[in-house]
């Protein structure tokens, strides 16, 4: 058997360039009329139909001669190199990816395009702790994917809920694309972890060096002392990650050859998959993938609020916006002299009711009504929203509608 150079094998084994359009001229029209019964198939067929411009869908494999962006920089070719046994490799050989049933099943399960190479999919499953070589692990892809996930989530939140306070945005970011959410997504996709990484392991398994039970989490993942103690909101927005942490997150490559928990490896896989999809399939399909797998997760934003002084905040808000001062009014009550009274209090500004709350005491009902009024203010949602990422590469700027930018949360 002829020896395959590692740097080229990934590109050689990719599927050949197939005609993107169906060969039959009527097939496209027929495909549009068929209503697929499976949602995933529907999403796939929609993904090819809905895009007007051909250039956006050019997801063919790159030329073998040209350098592939996802592929690693080629190591210097050694003329006489001994063939290594698979057990000696830190992670599975890319050649094994095309034979792995697990990888093919995963690609089909995620309804990824056939031209998304299995070799790249296998690479996204290799955590730096398993293979420290940046050419074969998913560190670079996960950095790209983390940035894309943060961008799409922030854009969705800021455009759809322009009045959200910044702590709530951080919490929502964490709920949509935080480490725990990504690990949950990975487990829902059916990702299984290898007991120990190695070249002989099936490439469809998540490869990472496991943290032995009872041992401490590595120092890079541990909660660290912030670099200064008064961490301001500006610092959280500018200097740290998208979740408003105290510190910057650890560099993925810094975790090489360090035992890590499963959650860390799973989230790096999901991020790397997003990055790889962006490189191979382009941003429209990544956005669709993001919408189907991340934004479709239901999150009730109204449960993320934690008010301490809602009555004071509300009167500040009314003064700021030029409304009449809020007045709490008793709408109904029952059992005032009993052990379990219920009061329903509404907060009115002039003739308009801003919020309503029920409680076991007048104070509680008033507190809850003010909190409900503040939530109604913060959870305002514009009717027409144009996401900035939807205008990427558009030449026709008439579709762009400027989004609402609010003057900010109430600061007491």
């Amino acid at each position, binding site marked *: 058997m002829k020896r395959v150079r590692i740097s080229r094998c990934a590109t050689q084994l990719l599927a050949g360039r197939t005609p993107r359009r169906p060969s039959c001229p009527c097939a496209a029209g027929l495909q549009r009329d068929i209503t697929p019964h499976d949602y995933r198939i529907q999403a796939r067929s929609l993904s090819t139909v809905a895009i007007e411009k051909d250039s956006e869908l050019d997801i063919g494999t790159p030329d073998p001669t040209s350098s592939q962006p996802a592929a690693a920089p080629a190591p210097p070719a050694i003329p006489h190199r001994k063939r290594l046994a698979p057990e000696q490799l830190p992670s599975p050989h890319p050649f094994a990816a095309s034979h792995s049933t697990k990888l093919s099943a995963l690609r089909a399960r995620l309804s990824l395009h056939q031209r998304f190479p299995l070799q790249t999919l296998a690479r996204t499953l290799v955590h730096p702790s398993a293979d420290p070589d940046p050419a074969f692990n998913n560190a670079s892809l996960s950095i790209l994917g983390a940035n894309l996930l943060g961008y799409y989530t922030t854009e969705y939140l800021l455009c759809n809920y322009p009045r959200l306070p910044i702590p709530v945005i951080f919490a929502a970011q964490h709920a949509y694309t935080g480490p725990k959410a990504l690990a949950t997504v990975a487990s829902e996709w059916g990702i299984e972890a290898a007991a120990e990484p190695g070249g002989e392991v099936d490439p469809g398994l998540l490869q990472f060096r496991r943290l032995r039970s009872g041992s401490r989490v590595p120092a890079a993942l541990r909660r660290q002392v912030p670099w200064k103690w008064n961490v301001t909101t500006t610092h959280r927005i500018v200097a740290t990650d998208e979740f408003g942490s105290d510190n910057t997150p650890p560099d993925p490559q810094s975790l090489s050859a360090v035992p890590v928990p499963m959650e860390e490896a799973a989230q790096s896989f999901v991020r790397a998959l997003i990055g790889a999809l962006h490189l191979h399939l382009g941003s429209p399909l990544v956005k669709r993938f993001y919408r189907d797998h991340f934004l479709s997760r239901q999150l009730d934003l*109204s*449960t993320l*609020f*934690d*008010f*301490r002084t*809602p009555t004071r905040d509300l009167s500040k808000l009314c003064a700021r916006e030029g*409304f009449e*001062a809020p*007045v*709490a*009014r*008793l*709408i109904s009550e029952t059992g005032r002299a009993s052990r379990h009274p219920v009061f329903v*209090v*509404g907060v*009115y*500004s*002039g*003739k*308009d*009711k*801003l*919020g*309503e*709350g*029920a*409680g076991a005491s*007048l104070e*509680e009902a*008033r*507190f*809850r009504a003010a*909190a*409900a*009024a503040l*939530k*109604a*203010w913060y*959870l*305002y*949602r*514009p*009717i027409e929203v144009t996401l900035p990422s939807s205008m990427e590469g558009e030449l026709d700027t008439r579709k762009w509608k400027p989004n*609402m930018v609010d003057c900010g949360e109430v600061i007491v």
Partner: protein
Amino acid sequence: MSTCKTLSRISVPTLPQTTTLLKPTHLPLVQRRHESTTRRHKKLLALPEAPSFTPSRSSPTLIFNPPSAAPNVYHTPLKFLPKDDKRRALYATHQAASTQAAYRTHTSPIAAPGTPLHAASSSSHLPPRPSASLPPALRAPYEKKYHLTDKDIAEIQRLRREDANRWTRVRLAEKFGCSQFFVGLVAKNEAKAERVRESHEKARERWGAGRRMAREERGRRRVLWGRDA
């Protein structure tokens, strides 16, 4: 038991028609029908259905009758909408249309608005008038007066400094017609505050396990108010 007794007692005078005419009696001679049979009782129980469950048309319609619940916070009140939001115009159109529809439908000329008879005879409800009275306020609304001058404030500070036990925050607030919060703001007496805090601490030390736990639970429940839990 009691019903049988009353029935027997009432039904006595109506039995012999001729004799009652002859005999003088105090009871009026009106024929009465008593709900004494099972059929009549059953008929009484057959109440008309709620208007929301009885559509006016025979064709299948959507019945929307949700149980009473807290208002949805995702529904932005009209006052909180920005100036250029389309929902303002939509609300105004809906208000006008519903008012016109309510006036157009035939209502009973006798039934007073707001009564169940009126609601049953007319399928649509009039939206509340702008002049409708609001529910009573929890506290009497007040205007901030900003009437204290620098001289008054100096006087407050002097009194508080000289005799903090005599001139408490409550007394000063009553004397100068301002809030206790304002008194604490301009004339804070650290020594007195410390003494009060110590006395409270001493009182708290005498609490038993039950009272202490109850107070802590109350504080924890209060935190949950702001989280809507």
